[in-house]
């Protein structure tokens, strides 16, 4: 099964997606015991599911409670979620049996959406080194990207949990006059922290032509919130990088595939359209109602549900709490679903402060 999926990712044939998805479902139903029991409670099994949309989707939060991996193909590698919002004891665990599939999925998406022009920019990373956080799927991915796409060694500006602001300022000043594009890649809240520093200190950079920025993750709880448009404006103002060279990555520890805005690719190919996140050929994404879990009409917001064939070693069908809406050929992320406003007079979850 692993070889088949790897081959599909390397040379996808969209017509075969449904058939492969059902094969992966059978494989996971047989080999992943907690997932099988989850399906049995819903009276779903490979004999009764005939369409990929009917494959039971596991809530992403389940990775906090169970080892959702197919047994047999070896230990693989365990990745942990950061657990920043719910405390360390609630970290999700995703065991990836075959790292080569994860790697090829990550690299193909990155090449397609960040480097569609074949550029090989110098990589400056606003995230820790993989060696410092070997359980972080993001750090693993960045290391793969650094190995695969850049001539010079990647330079890291987060260490010991701290953004090395002065070092990054100094390095950007050095690289400004060098006529080679730079790729700034990092977590969104680190960018916001650096932008705040630039604002306070009155710093402005003009990065070389075709430099680009990839930010990932949200800002919640780690820095002040910033809208996507506010961030794009700030990237232009402080780095001189226009919005069409900025893309936001959306991914999660529980899922081996990532999504990127199509902005850079649209620019390179001369398309004018709203930015959207486009699923790779080995992923299908649906927008579903939080109330019924049924797909919502196009254009309505709902929760994102993914079927990711690269997750062949764990669970392919994932129900997230990310709110999104279909846009163009893909979707846009509107954030995480938050607590409801109190409507009645009963004390609500989020009002409960003890």
């Amino acid at each position, binding site marked *: 099964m692993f070889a088949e999926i790897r081959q599909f990712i390397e040379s996808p044939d969209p017509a075969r997606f449904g058939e492969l998805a059902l094969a992966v479902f059978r494989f996971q139903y047989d080999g992943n015991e907690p997932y099988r029991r989850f399906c049995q409670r819903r009276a779903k099994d490979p004999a009764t599911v005939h369409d990929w949309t009917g494959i039971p989707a596991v809530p992403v939060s389940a990775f906090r409670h*169970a080892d959702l991996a197919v047994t047999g193909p070896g230990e693989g590698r365990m990745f942990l979620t950061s657990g920043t919002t719910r405390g360390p004891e609630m970290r999700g665990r995703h065991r990836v049996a075959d790292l080569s599939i994860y790697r090829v999925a990550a690299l193909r998406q990155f090449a397609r959406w960040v480097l569609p022009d074949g550029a090989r920019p110098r990589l400056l990373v606003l995230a820790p080194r993989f060696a410092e956080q070997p359980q972080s799927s993001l750090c693993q991915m960045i290391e793969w990207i650094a190995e695969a796409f850049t001539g010079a060694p990647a330079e890291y500006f987060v260490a010991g949990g701290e953004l090395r602001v002065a070092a990054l300022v100094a390095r950007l000043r050095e690289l400004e006059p060098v006529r080679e594009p730079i790729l700034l890649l990092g977590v969104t809240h680190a960018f916001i922290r650096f932008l705040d520093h630039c604002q306070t200190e009155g710093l402005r950079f003009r990065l070389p032509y075709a430099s680009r920025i990839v930010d990932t993750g949200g800002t919640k709880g780690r820095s002040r919130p910033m809208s996507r448009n506010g961030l794009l404006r700030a990237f232009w103002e402080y780095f001189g990088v226009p919005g069409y060279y900025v893309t936001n990555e959306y991914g999660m520890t529980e899922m081996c595939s990532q999504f990127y805005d199509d902005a850079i690719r649209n620019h390179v190919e001369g398309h004018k359209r709203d930015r959207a996140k486009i699923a790779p050929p080995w992923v299908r994404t649906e927008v579903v109602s939080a109330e019924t879990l049924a797909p919502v009409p196009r254009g309505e917001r709902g929760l994102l549900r993914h079927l990711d064939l690269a997750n062949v070693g764990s669970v392919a069908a994932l129900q997230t709490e990310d709110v999104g809406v279909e846009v163009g050929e893909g979707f846009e992320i509107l954030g995480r679903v938050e607590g409801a406003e109190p409507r009645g007079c009963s004390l609500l979850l989020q009002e409960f402060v003890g």
Partner: protein
Amino acid sequence: MIGRAGWLPPGAEPREREESFGKRRLLVPDLAPVEIHALLGRLRRRAETLPARDDRIAAIARAALRFLDPADPLARRAADLLPGVTGFSPEMIREVLPRIFAALDEATLGGIVAEARGAVHPLVAIVAAGNVPGVALPKMALALAAGSACLVKCAQGEPVLAPLFAAALAAESAALGSATAVAWWKGGANAWEEEVQRTADSLIAYGSDEAIAGIARRAPATFVAHGHRLSIALVDLARAVTVEPIAEAAALDVTLYDQLGCLSPQCIYVTGGDAAGRAAFVAALARSLERLARLLPRGEAPAEASAAIRRVRDEIEWRELAGEPVRVLASDTGTTWTVIEEASEGFRPSPLYRTIFVRPLARAEGLRAALGAALRRVECAGVAPWPHEEIASALAASGIANVVPLGRMQSPTLRWRQGGNPPLAGIERTSA
């Protein structure tokens, strides 16, 4: 005909403007600061010209009675407007309207007012909040019965019943009507709030902690706040002959107002009996919730609430799959109702919209420890079987002010000690 989120005593011909409330647009009085000043001054003086006590109590009770008749034009108006404004289903609104108004009865009003020890505040202001229908009505009725004039700010989530009740009062007694005003304004520093602070003698406010804190900054000297509260239930299976009627009563208290009221139980503690007994109770509770979901359909839940319910369901299911003795029973489709059987004592808040936790409790005396920090937020405890001396005394000892039979939690009488306060708190001068 467009509805009104306001009612002003005869004499004024105010401008009105349209505002959105839920899915409806309603007219609200649009008064200039000088008019607000004049209105409140006039109201305050009307307290002196109210009818005699027995006459005004009889008139208030007659006005309330009109809403028990579904054919009455005012009751029809309420039933027509409330679903769109509040988000509750029409069936729910029809079910709760008589419960709200039946409580405003002559005997209880008379009894409470007769027990009043001192003078009353001439002008009592009431700021309502939330979408639970009729939150302000008991205080409105008690204030007028006790001899105060009354200004009500109706809630953004339910601006319908207070104006209709004021209209009914005016129809029964012109003098009562002229001592009553209902308005709506956006919370925050404005002419209304300044004038309430300057002219009203007392303010009774409902709302979230945050809203209450904002109102408190501009309140008159006498200020009674009713923040968001929660309720619980206690069931003694050792005393129960069968679980069905108890489950039915519990399901009704969970279902009414879609569990959004401060009298809605968020957790049912089960003492006595064994695990099998608890399981039977949980199963019966699930059946009752399903039956009630068909009779009294749930209103639409916001996506955030649906997601919060799913989050809890998912967590419990995966903990069960991991071998913990927990269980979730839930509606087949949607998040209409959910029963969560937890294995431990303790408390966690429910995401509401008919999501009820069931927890074991070794002894009723252990409730204080089980609730922990939530104890000071408990408004009411429902108990079954009823009466139950030991549980009632254990609950009283833990400081819970309202203990009622399960199944009656959502039908408070006027003697309800809201927030632990006596019924005339904020109305009687001595009870400030």
